[in-house]
C-alpha cells in the first residue's frame, strides 16, 4: 500500500508541474495585467512596482524562480496546527499578492482557506447525512411509495442547482421568516443555510448511488445466506450489504469533494462568506498573478490528495481490488 501511495504521489509531480506551467504562462500571454486597471502612475512608481514583483526579469527566470519558491523545502506538519502557514510547515512560498501589496498569498490562504474548508466539511456531512439514509430507505423499500418519495427527492436535489436553491432558501427562511441571517459568516447559525444549499446536490447524487449500489448487492447469494441464517433485516443491511453497496458512493466522494470545492465559489458569493473560493474568482478578475497561481495550485493539490485517499479507501473496502 505504501508503494502504491508513493507511486501515485510521484505521478502527481508532473501533473502539478503541468498545472503550474499552464496557469503561469496563460496569465502572462493574455493582454492586460494586474496594474492596467489602476490610475495612471508615474514611471518611477511603475518601475518600483515592477522591480518589487520581479517583472523586469526575463520570463523564463521569473518562471524558474517561482518554481523554486514553490518547492517544498522542509517538512514540519506540526506547524500547521498553529495556523495554515505553508511557509513554516513546508517552506512553500506563494509570494506577495499583486492586489493587496502588503499581504502575501500565504497569509491570504491562511486567512481564507479555513472558512472554505469549514463550509466544505459541513456540506459534505450534510450530503452524507441526508443522502445515505434516503438511499438506504429507498433500496430497502424498493418500488413502494417510500422508494418513489426518496427517489423524487433525490431528483429534485439534482435538478435545482445551488444558485437557484440558495437564493430561494434565503428568501424563505431569512427574509420572510427572519430565522437566519441572509448573509455573513459569524455564529453557528450562519452555517446552516450555506451548508444545506451546497450539501443538498451531493446528497441527491449520494442517495441515488446508495440505492443503486445496495440494490445490486441485496440480490446476491451471500445476502440470501445471511437471511437464511436468520440475521435480522437491520443486520443484513448494515452489517452485510452496506460494505459492498457503498463502493459506488466511495468512488463518488472524489469528484464530490472537487465539486464541493468549486461549488463554494457560488455559495460564498450568494451568502457573502469570506472564503477562498470568492477570493479566487476575484483574483482572476483582478489578474492577481500570484494569488491565482497560489489558489489553483492549492485546489489541485487538495483534489489530487483526496482522490488518492478515496482510491486507498476503495481498495481497503473491496478485497477484489488490488493496489496497482
Amino acid at each position, binding site marked *: 500500500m505504501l508503494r502504491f501511495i508513493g507511486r501515485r504521489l510521484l*505521478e502527481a509531480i508532473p*501533473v502539478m508541474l503541468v*498545472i503550474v506551467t499552464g*496557469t503561469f504562462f*496563460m*496569465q502572462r500571454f*493574455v493582454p492586460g495585467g494586474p496594474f492596467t486597471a489602476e490610475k495612471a502612475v508615474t514611471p518611477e512608481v511603475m518601475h518600483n512596482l515592477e522591480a518589487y514583483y520581479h517583472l523586469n526579469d526575463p520570463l523564463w527566470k521569473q518562471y524558474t524562480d517561482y518554481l523554486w519558491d514553490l518547492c517544498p523545502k522542509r517538512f514540519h506538519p506540526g506547524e500547521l496546527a498553529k495556523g495554515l502557514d505553508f511557509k513554516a510547515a513546508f517552506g512553500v512560498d506563494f509570494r506577495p499578492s499583486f492586489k493587496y501589496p502588503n499581504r502575501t498569498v500565504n497569509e491570504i490562504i491562511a486567512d481564507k482557506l479555513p472558512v472554505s474548508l469549514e463550509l466544505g466539511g459541513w456540506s459534505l456531512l450534510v450530503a452524507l447525512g441526508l443522502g445515505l439514509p434516503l438511499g438506504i430507505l429507498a433500496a430497502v423499500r424498493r418500488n413502494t411509495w417510500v422508494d418513489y418519495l426518496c427517489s423524487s427527492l433525490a*431528483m429534485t436535489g*439534482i*435538478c*435545482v*442547482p445551488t*444558485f*437557484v436553491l*440558495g*437564493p*430561494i432558501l*434565503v*428568501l424563505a427562511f431569512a*427574509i420572510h421568516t427572519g430565522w437566519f441571517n441572509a448573509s455573513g459568516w459569524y455564529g453557528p447559525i450562519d452555517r446552516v443555510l450555506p451548508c444545506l444549499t451546497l450539501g443538498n446536490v451531493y446528497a441527491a447524487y449520494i442517495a441515488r448511488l446508495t440505492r443503486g449500489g445496495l440494490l445490486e448487492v441485496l440480490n446476491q447469494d451471500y445476502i440470501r445466506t445471511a437471511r437464511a441464517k436468520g440475521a435480522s433485516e437491520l443486520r443484513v443491511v448494515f452489517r452485510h450489504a452496506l460494505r459492498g453497496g457503498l463502493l459506488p458512493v466511495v468512488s463518488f466522494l*472524489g*469528484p464530490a469533494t*472537487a465539486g464541493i*470545492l*468549486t461549488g463554494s*465559489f*457560488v455559495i460564498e*458569493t*450568494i451568502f457573502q462568506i469570506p472564503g477562498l473560493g470568492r477570493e*479566487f*474568482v476575484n483574483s*482572476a*478578475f483582478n489578474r492577481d498573478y500570484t494569488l*491565482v497561481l497560489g489558489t*489553483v495550485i492549492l*485546489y*489541485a493539490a487538495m*483534489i*489530487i490528495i483526496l*482522490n488518492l485517499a478515496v482510491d486507498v479507501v476503495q481498495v481497503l473496502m473491496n478485497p477484489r481490488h488490488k493496489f496497482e
Partner: protein
Amino acid sequence: MTIFPPRNLSAPGAALPSEESGHSPWSDAWARLRKNRLAVAGGIVVVVLAVLCAAGPIFSQSYEEQNLDLGASSPSLAHWLGTDTLGRDLLARVLYGGRISILVGLVATVVALVIGVTYGAVAGFVGGKADTVMMRVVDILYALPFTIFVILLMVFFGRNIFLLFFAIGAVEWLTMARIVRGQVLSIKRMEFIEAARALGYGRRRIIFRHIIPNILGPIIVYTTLTIPAVMLLEAFLSFLGLGVQPPMSSWGVLIKDGADKMEEYWWLLVFPGTAFSLTLFSLNFLGDGLRDALDVRASKD
C-alpha cells in the same frame, strides 16, 4: 470462418426479433420508452419548451424594449410573468434566455460528443500502449479542478460565447470517452469487425462505419444526460458573471439578476429558476428512461 450467423448487436439484451413481425431493436426500445410515463412526460416538456423558446420570441413582446415608467411590476394580464426593473417583459426574457441556454447546451454537447467519441473509439480500437497512455491522460484530467480552468479561460480570453462552447465541451468529453472506449473494447473482437478487416477496410472506415453505429445506444443515452450537465455549467459560469454577456441573456444570467433583486421582486428569481429546473428535470427523466429502454449499463472501464 464462422459457423454462427451474426448476432443482433445494435442493442445488447434486446429481445430477439420474432419471425412474423420483425421488430428492430430500435422499435423494441421505442416501445419500452413509451411505457415509461415519466420519460415520455420529460420528452414532451423538453420539446414544448424548446419550441416555445425557439418560436416564442417571434410572437411575444420584445425582450429588450424598456418601459422605465412601468419599472418592476408583478405578474399581470399584460405581462404574464411581470417585468424586470427596467420594465422589460419577463416572459419574453425567459423565452429568449432559454434560446441561448438550450443553444449552449446543444452546441457544447456536440463538441463534447465529437471529442469524446473519437478519442474513446480510437483508444479502444487501437488498444495496447496507446490505449493505456490515452486512458491514463483521461484519468489524470478527471482528477483536475477543471471548473477552475474554465473560469480562468473565460476571464483571460474574454467572455466570448464561442469560447464558452469549446471551454464547456472540453470539460465534458471525458465521461463520453470512457464509455465509448468500454463499448468499443466489448465489440471489437466480434466477427463482423473481423470480416470488415478481412475485406481490407482501413481503420478509420472500420471505426466510423462499423463500430460507432453499433454503440449508438449508450452514446444517445449519455448525450441526453450531458445536455443538462452542460446547461448547469453554463448557468454556473453566467451566475459568476463569466458566461453569456449582455445584451444577450441566458437562464443563468436571469437567475443571477433575480437573486440580486429577490428581496423586492420575487418573480424575477422564481420564474427563470423554475424554467431552468423544469428543463433539467425533463432532460434527466428522458435520459434515465432512454437508459432503461436501450438497456445501457453504466460501464466504467
